[in-house]
């Protein structure tokens, strides 16, 4: 592995370095008891700055009590192209829904 000083490379090509700031996806927990929800994305040099910028961009009006930032490159997503084959296995299992079952109408609390 070639040893190059990161500081030197940053000085040598500041523009390129700035452009390579990774993309972070931001998730906010709006309130205790709710799960974190994706709200958007931002660029930041590291996780700490991503958190700070996420706070300033997405929670200026107390929209959150907790924040997650995840490198966009670390997210593995299903592909829209294979939507059918990927989600099909759930399509023919109607018995997973309560309305599938035949029960007498006069039974209460069921």
């Amino acid at each position, binding site marked *: 592995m070639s040893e190059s000083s*990161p*500081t030197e490379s*940053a000085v040598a090509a500041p523009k390129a370095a700035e452009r390579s700031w990774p993309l972070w996806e931001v998730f906010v927990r709006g309130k205790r*008891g709710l799960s974190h929800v994706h709200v*958007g*994305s931002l660029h930041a040099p*590291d996780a700490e*700055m991503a958190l700070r910028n996420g706070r300033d*961009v997405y929670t200026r009006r107390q929209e959150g009590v907790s924040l997650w930032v995840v490198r966009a490159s670390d997210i593995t997503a299903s592909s829209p192209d294979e939507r059918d084959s990927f989600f099909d296995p759930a399509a023919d299992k109607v018995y997973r829904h309560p309305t599938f079952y035949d029960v007498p109408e006069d039974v209460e609390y069921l």
Partner: protein
Amino acid sequence: MYGNDFVDPDQPLNAAETGDVEAAAADAATARARREQVGSSFDELIAADQRIEPRDDMPEGYRKTLIRQIAQHAHSEIIGMQPEGNWISRAPSLRRKAILMAKVQDEAGHGLYLYSAAETLGVDRAELLDLLHAGKQRYSSIFNYPTLTWADCGAIGWLVDGAAIMNQVPLCRCSYGPYARAMIRVCKEESFHQRQGFEILWELSKGTDAQRAMAQDAANRWWWPALMMFGPPDTGEAAAKGGHTEQSMAWGIKRFSNDDLRQKFVDMMVPQAQRLGLTLPDPDLRFDEESGHWAFGPIDWDEFWRVLRGDGACNAERIEHRVAAHEEGAWVREAATAYADKHDGARRRQESAA
């Protein structure tokens, strides 16, 4: 539902919000469910009024139109920080100063929501900023007018943000998901902007003769440029000449014509101007009983094109200021990058040693 203590994270943030924004938010939430029922090709999704998401197939023209529109919108938000930023150090009270700073910060935030929406289409924010700085992409012409007095801050909030809301509410239903979601956030925040502007003028209207004259002068200068914000005519004869409107409507990017939105805006603003005791600078303004709308005089489209092409009072100044701010901030970005690299390197060394 598994519990009855249901908290709506999208609950209104203030009383000024329109039902349209809430409806659009609810609409977006159910879009996924409805999507199951239609095909997944671009045309099928558009025909069923479904949202297009970043990794879906889309025509190149759709992608390009969106990049151009979202970028121009984002640029407008960040250039829009300048006319009012100009008054932060001279705001008449600490209260006004705090409000103005919050508003200008919101504009920066709106720019960021929009740049990140544009990036989902495969462009880089830095590229878009380069195009803005080089004069190759535009921002709204309204920001090329100067803010000469404190009353201008009122007129901008009331008229300019009022027109922006009118334009933006329909975009909450735009066919492109990330843009629509960004607009929902923006619209929720804009309503404070318009109300604070109205309040500035309301205070002035209750003040001295000089204060009332200042408010009137600001309304005189901002009324016509605000009407131009909706863009050139695109109905009737003008529609035949072509333009983006028809295609953008078919793609669900645009929901109403420029002329319809402009009329809605005039109908909304005239009673508000009356309440403020301001006279709008249009001798032809009158209520048309037949149509139920306020009729207004001809707009000076020569002025619109002149300012758009660079001949406004502040075109050069706005871009110069923007470029200077970008360049003077470079050392901060470089330092942050160097710091991140240093710590990344340290962590990697630690990991390989372990």
